[in-house]
């Protein structure tokens, strides 16, 4: 059967879904960056509080807002080997407590000795934080109160404690965005890795030789066929092999023959080449949908240990690829310009 062979660069078989997944991850990253533009620092100050006297800050007008919350971050500025239990308090206009949260802060340092070596360590957990959201417009004032203060050695102290207080409004909770970015990003990665494996396997043949063949139903006008050849060869292989690919139609008649170069990758162990692997791929639109025979010959064949031929029907691609379109030639000879010339 006479056929027409055309080779074209095609993007119409690109799988859009992996790009949508990537876009979702990109959106989370964008949300991460944009988040900081919504926050506004209202107060950034250092205050002093003791057990008898909490530190009071100026009143803040809160309103119901669609984005972000009021974030109060308090860092206890204590000397080393001390601990402090402090409370972040919110008062309404009548002076009633409307919210409070406790942080147990500490700061320690010391030295360590181990197997003749030594060094010093310093650790602290002094930063506390509270995010609040208002349901209605209201005025709140913030206070930081010391509940207890002491030394690691056990002695309690009755001294004022310094606190660094930062109050911001419109703060976005980024604790959600990082897992969101990792989650959407890894799904996008899996989608990209899965794209070359898409479609139905029409042929999957592995032989311990260099000339696998197989026959399967594949093709159709709107379906992409992916032909993949994987080769494993021994240490005597040259850097490049030649892969000859033949396609036969339903009657066993050869309709396509092409030679593809395959560059091998050497697997080395202790500087010695143990094995070489390589793969080539080709894409086809085979018309009509029918039974096709695929035959591969790898040259030179002496070093080839194993050859795998995989044909996937209705596959998708990551990017635009070179596609060989094989379709039956029009039967009417008068329409063939080459015949007219002779």
């Amino acid at each position, binding site marked *: 059967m006479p056929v027409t062979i055309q080779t074209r660069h095609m993007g119409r078989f690109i799988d859009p879904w992996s790009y949508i997944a990537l876009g979702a991850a990109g959106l989370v990253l964008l949300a991460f960056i944009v988040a900081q533009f919504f926050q506004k620092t209202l107060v950034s100050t250092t205050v002093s509080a003791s057990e008898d006297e909490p530190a009071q800050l100026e009143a803040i007008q809160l309103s119901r807002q669609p984005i972000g919350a009021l974030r109060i971050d308090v860092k206890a500025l204590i000397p080393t080997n001390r601990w402090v239990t402090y409370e972040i308090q919110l008062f309404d206009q009548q002076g009633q407590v409307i919210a409070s949260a406790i942080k147990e802060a*500490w700061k320690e340092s010391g030295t360590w000795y181990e197997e003749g070596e030594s060094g010093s360590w310093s650790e602290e957990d002094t930063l506390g934080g509270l995010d*609040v959201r208002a349901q209605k417009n209201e005025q709140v004032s913030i206070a930081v109160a010391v509940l207890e203060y002491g030394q690691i050695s056990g002695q309690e102290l009755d001294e004022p404690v310094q606190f660094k207080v930062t109050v911001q409004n419109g703060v976005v909770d980024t604790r959600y965005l990082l897992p969101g970015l990792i989650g959407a990003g890894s799904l996008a990665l899996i*989608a990209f890795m899965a794209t070359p494996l898409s479609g139905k396997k029409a042929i999957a043949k592995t032989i311990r030789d260099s000339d696998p063949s197989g026959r399967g139903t594949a093709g159709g006008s709107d379906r992409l066929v992916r032909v993949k050849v994987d080769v494993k060869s021994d240490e005597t292989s040259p850097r490049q092999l030649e892969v000859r690919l033949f396609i036969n139609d339903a009657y066993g008649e050869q309709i396509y023959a092409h030679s593809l170069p395959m560059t091998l990758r050497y697997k080395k162990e202790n500087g010695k080449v143990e094995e070489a692997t390589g793969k080539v791929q080709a894409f086809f639109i085979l018309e009509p949908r029918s039974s096709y025979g695929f035959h591969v010959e790898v040259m030179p064949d002496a070093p080839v240990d194993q050859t795998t031929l995989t044909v996937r029907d209705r596959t998708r691609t990551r990017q635009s690829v070179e596609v060989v379109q094989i379709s039956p030639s029009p039967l009417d000879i008068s329409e063939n310009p080459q015949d007219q010339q002779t």
Partner: protein
Amino acid sequence: MLTKVLAATAVAIAVFTIIAGYTQRSALVLGEEKQRNYWSRRGTSLSGTYNENTTGTSGGVIWVPLPNRSSYGSFRGGGPSAGK
């Protein structure tokens, strides 16, 4: 098909995390009795809950300090030497 499912899941994750982050679903909602989504930051725990105001005449909710609030007294530093 697989990539379609992966993409749909990725979009769902992105939409949920962006909405959750931007609307601050884990923040303390002032005057709200149920704080189901509250997620404390930097080991700072709430020291009270909102209860219905049964004593006042104005109604609404009031902040009630936790009964075990005095238990903070057991904290004597949380560093390596505290034996944790």
